[in-house]
């Protein structure tokens, strides 16, 4: 076929040239013979023949044009020419590349976060497309629950569409490091875990079938590569050695490969144990046989070709059967599947809206950057009008001009995309840096720059080239030759033929920046509201830490003695007002105990089983935390093992179960045990500031003991000041016990606002960037307007306009653009700010302060951007400008 030859011709000129040479020689020879036959001398004949053939080079070029694809040659030529043009105006090129690098880099970074956190969050885990998160549902309560181990096993036994049930639960243990104990994260997993996720341990083995059954029957562990390196210095004969985890010696059977962090968004796990070891990591509470204890957070790997809907239908059917078989525990309970990126039980769910916002924000920034580069190209196109006019008038096709300009644009954005990937690489761990650390726990919120992200970024690069390059290219190539040749300067302010395009670009930039600023303003206010919101307990003057006696090997009796003695010692310290142990400290990432509840005279709807979360707290806990009582009393040391079981309920619980009657003196059944209500506590927040109130109650720690406990201390001292005394007092009792990190309750609360803070940071940084870019755009437009209108300005001056008048003229023109942008931005902002959704806490999406602040910032930035060109306008020298 012709095109094959032509393609060959395109890349190997020499062949077709020598071919054509030979053909030409033959022709000339033949012609010469003809002339000789007609009686010419041979020399004469050859000369005539040559002459008649004409310009050999031209003929050859035209022949070769027929033999090649012109556009490939043209593309190479365009690229070389474009690079030359870009190097000739380095200021322009740098500015354009900088704008685009920021735009594309920000996009690539957010893409990489979305890929690394939401879409393919688990390095080394195979085929994450087929993984889905599994949670339980409860008809009586919104949100998700975990799944009990017996339910999990029943689902596994009865499902045909699921290839593997990967059950796991985040857990932790205390590893002592010198004087401090540090929490280390790990996971309790089903025995199939390593096979099901497709990860082979570097050393040793994963878990064997059956290792997840039998209470505490299999104290074996697979440790992370990092733990192997840090704690065991990469000991090659580590397999078979032991490590105390959860207070029990575990045999190390495997080392996970480097780069495997487990399957929990947000944390890098350090060890894995079989689910059979559960009670050892729950302070002795055995949940393996308990269908009512919901603790498994797992995944399913669907068989190839099975959709989430099919699997959901099957699991729901199984759950319905379980509901019928076990009404006492499973009434109203269902099972729900989520795509990985919506996983509700790890940080994926929490970061989803944040990353969504981030995506919108960076796309806006990219648009603004593109508008800027488009503007710059237009300014330059004006400067190159002469060149374009000449090229057009000597016969260049308009298509060729557009192609040439697009090539320039593509080169700009390709360089910027390369720079953008560098930016994205720097930003990979930015999310983890914005997320507060928890002592010793390894956070992991990485960006992932894989081929999908690269491809998407390349796509963004091409699309942005079209965005910023096409309009200028079309306008430039569409020069009216006659008009262009007539005059090159003069004109009236704003009356330039393509002024409207540039004005539109600025308008769009201004409105987008406005929207981003409003969003930033709203989130800042929201964050402030969150921070100043009362969690229902004191954040000032209360410190919290933890003492894990269970891991330290204490039995219940010794642990109780230790806790009592230690509280006495603490309260004897100067500066400590009170101190109390509890199983959990509020706003912890661990989960409260849950119990099914029954109350005399309260009938739950037939398909619901009322439940409530509770905390096991020591004497004086509520006073120490600053949670007031509305009725009755809190626990004292008298509420011990021999006393009747006691409970303190919160107002929500009192209202729901006793309907306005003071419950003090009445009884409540918790997990089948009747307890006496001794007090009603004011509502507080228990997990985070944004939770909706649900019934909550307290039971006495002594009567529901946990040797792994949090410690709350009411004191005027800071954590640093108190820490040495705390360690001293602990060591006085037992030199082998160490407290975990000591922080203020304020810090504890702040750590749960990470999603808001990340959103605010992203919006403020990129909103600021957007304003700067928009201001640069406005400046560019105004500056070139002024310089192109020098004759008009001079004329006005000559006719008696003062500097004031000119200043006003230019500023008015610039501010008119801004005003247009503000109107547009206002209209958009009113519509879109409610998309901020749950990130807005006690702030209306139409909050006037946020709108007003954004307004002021934009006006101020516009004034700055317009002032320099306006000032320059007043410096126009009328004589010079009019003569020139």
């Amino acid at each position: 076929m012709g095109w094959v030859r032509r393609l060959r011709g395109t890349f190997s000129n020499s062949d077709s040239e020598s071919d054509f040479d030979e053909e030409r020689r033959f022709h000339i020879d033949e012609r010469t013979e003809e002339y000789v036959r007609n009686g010419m001398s041979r020399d004469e004949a050859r000369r005539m023949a040559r002459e008649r053939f004409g310009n050999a080079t031209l003929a050859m070029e035209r022949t070769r044009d027929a033999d090649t694809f012109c556009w490939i040659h043209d593309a190479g030529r365009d690229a070389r020419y474009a690079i030359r043009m870009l190097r000739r105006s380095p200021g322009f090129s740098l500015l354009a590349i900088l704008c685009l690098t920021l735009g594309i880099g920000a996009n690539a970074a957010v893409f990489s976060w979305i890929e690394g956190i939401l879409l393919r969050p688990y390095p080394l885990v195979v085929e994450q497309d087929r993984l889905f998160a599994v949670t339980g549902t409860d008809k009586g309560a919104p949100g998700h629950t975990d799944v009990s181990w017996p339910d999990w096993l029943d689902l596994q036994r009865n499902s045909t569409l699921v290839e593997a049930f990967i059950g796991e639960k985040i857990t932790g243990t205390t590893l002592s490091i010198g004087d401090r104990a540090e929490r280390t994260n790990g996971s309790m997993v089903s025995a199939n875990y390593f096979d099901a996720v497709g990860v082979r341990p570097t050393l040793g083995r994963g878990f064997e079938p059956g290792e997840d059954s039998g209470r505490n029957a299999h104290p074996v562990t697979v440790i992370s590569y990092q733990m192997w390196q840090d704690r065991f210095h990469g000991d090659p004969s580590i397999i078979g050695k032991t490590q105390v985890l959860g207070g029990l010696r575990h045999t190390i059977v495997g080392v996970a490969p480097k780069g495997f962090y487990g399957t929990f968004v947000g944390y890098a796990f350090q060890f894995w144990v079989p689910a059979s070891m559960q009670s050892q990591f729950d302070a002795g509470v055995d949940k393996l046989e308990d269908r009512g204890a919901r603790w498994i957070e797992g995944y399913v790997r669907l068989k190839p070709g099975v959709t989430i809907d099919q699997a959901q239908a099957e699991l729901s059917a199984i759950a319905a059967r379980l509901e019928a078989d076990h009404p006492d525990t499973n009434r109203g309970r269902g099972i729900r599947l989520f795509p990985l990126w919506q996983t509700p039980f790890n940080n994926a769910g929490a970061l989803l809206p944040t990353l969504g916002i981030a995506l919108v924000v960076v796309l806006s920034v990219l648009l603004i950057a593109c508008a800027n580069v488009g503007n710059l190209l237009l300014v330059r196109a004006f400067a190159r009008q002469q060149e374009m006019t000449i090229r057009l008038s000597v016969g260049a096709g308009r298509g060729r001009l557009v192609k040439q300009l697009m090539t320039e644009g593509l080169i700009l954005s390709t360089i910027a995309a390369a720079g953008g990937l560098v930016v994205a690489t720097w930003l990979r761990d930015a999310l983890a840096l914005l997320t507060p650390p928890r002592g010793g726990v390894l956070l992991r919120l990485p960006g992932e720059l894989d081929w999908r992200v690269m491809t998407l970024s390349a796509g963004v690069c091409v699309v942005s080239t079209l965005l910023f390059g096409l309009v200028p290219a079309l306008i430039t190539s569409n020069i009216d030759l006659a008009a262009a040749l007539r005059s090159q300067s003069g004109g009236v302010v704003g009356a330039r033929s393509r002024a409207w395009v540039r004005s539109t670009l600025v308008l769009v930039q201004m409105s987008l920046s406005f929207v981003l600023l409003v969003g930033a303003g709203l989130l800042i206010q929201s964050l402030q509201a969150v921070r100043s919101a009362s969690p229902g307990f004191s954040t000032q003057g209360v410190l919290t830490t933890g003492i894990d006696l269970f891991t330290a090997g204490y039995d219940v009796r010794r642990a109780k003695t230790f806790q009592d003695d230690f509280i006495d010692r603490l309260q004897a310290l100067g500066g400590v007002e009170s101190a109390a142990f509890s199983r959990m400290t509020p706003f912890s990432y661990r989960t409260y105990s849950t119990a099914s509840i029954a109350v005399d005279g309260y009938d739950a709807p037939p398909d619901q089983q009322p439940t409530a979360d509770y905390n096991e707290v020591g004497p004086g806990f509520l006073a120490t935390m600053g949670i007031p009582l509305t009725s009755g009393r809190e626990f004292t040391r008298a509420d011990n093992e021999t006393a009747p079981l006691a409970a303190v309920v919160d107002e929500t619980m009192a209202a729901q179960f006793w309907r306005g009657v003071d419950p003090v003196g009445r009884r409540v059944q918790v997990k089948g045990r009747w307890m006496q209500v001794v007090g009603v506590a004011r509502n507080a927040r228990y997990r985070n500031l944004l939770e909706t109130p649900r019934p909550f109650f307290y039971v006495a720690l002594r009567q529901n003991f946990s040797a792994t406990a949090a410690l709350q201390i009411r004191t005027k001292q800071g954590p640093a000041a108190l820490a040495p005394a705390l360690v001293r007092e602990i060591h006085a009792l037992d030199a082998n016990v160490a407290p975990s990190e000591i922080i203020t309750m304020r810090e504890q609360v702040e750590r749960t606002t990470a999603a808001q803070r990340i959103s605010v940071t992203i919006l403020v940084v990129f909103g600021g960037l957007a304003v700067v870019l928009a201001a640069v755009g406005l400046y560019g437009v105004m500056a070139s307007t002024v310089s192109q209108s020098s004759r008009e300005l001079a004329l006005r001056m000559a006719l008696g306009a003062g500097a004031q008048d000119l200043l006003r003229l230019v500023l008015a023109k610039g501010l008119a653009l801004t005003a247009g942008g503000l109107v547009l931005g206002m209209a958009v902002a009113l519509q879109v700010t409610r998309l901020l959704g749950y990130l807005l806490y006690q702030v209306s999406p139409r909050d006037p302060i946020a709108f007003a602040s954004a307004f002021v910032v934009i006006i101020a930035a516009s004034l700055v951007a317009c002032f320099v060109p306006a000032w320059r306008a007043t410096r126009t020298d009328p004589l010079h400008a009019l003569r020139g």
Partner: protein
Amino acid sequence: MLRRHKKKDALQGTLDLLVLKILSRGPHHGYGIAADIQSISDDILRVEEGSLYPALHRMEHLGWITATWKTTTNNRRARLYTLTRAGQNHLDEEQVTWDRLTKGVAKVLRFA
């Protein structure tokens, strides 16, 4: 290329027509084609070499003709062009068009 193909001007079309017609009598090299056109038209039509060869190469790519290197009787290498099936079809079409065109032009000239 595509555009040039579509927006082919009348003159170029004429050259194509003549070349294809000559080749319909049998394979020929460039010089031969030019010489034939000149002699058959009684020296009225003289083909510019600068136009002939690009036209030949172009028609080759369009698939109307094929080219092969052959050795001539006096032992020289010449590039011989042969009409293809597609070229024959194109020639037939163009010839009809051309006949109608000239007839029309002739009528107008007679009338005016």
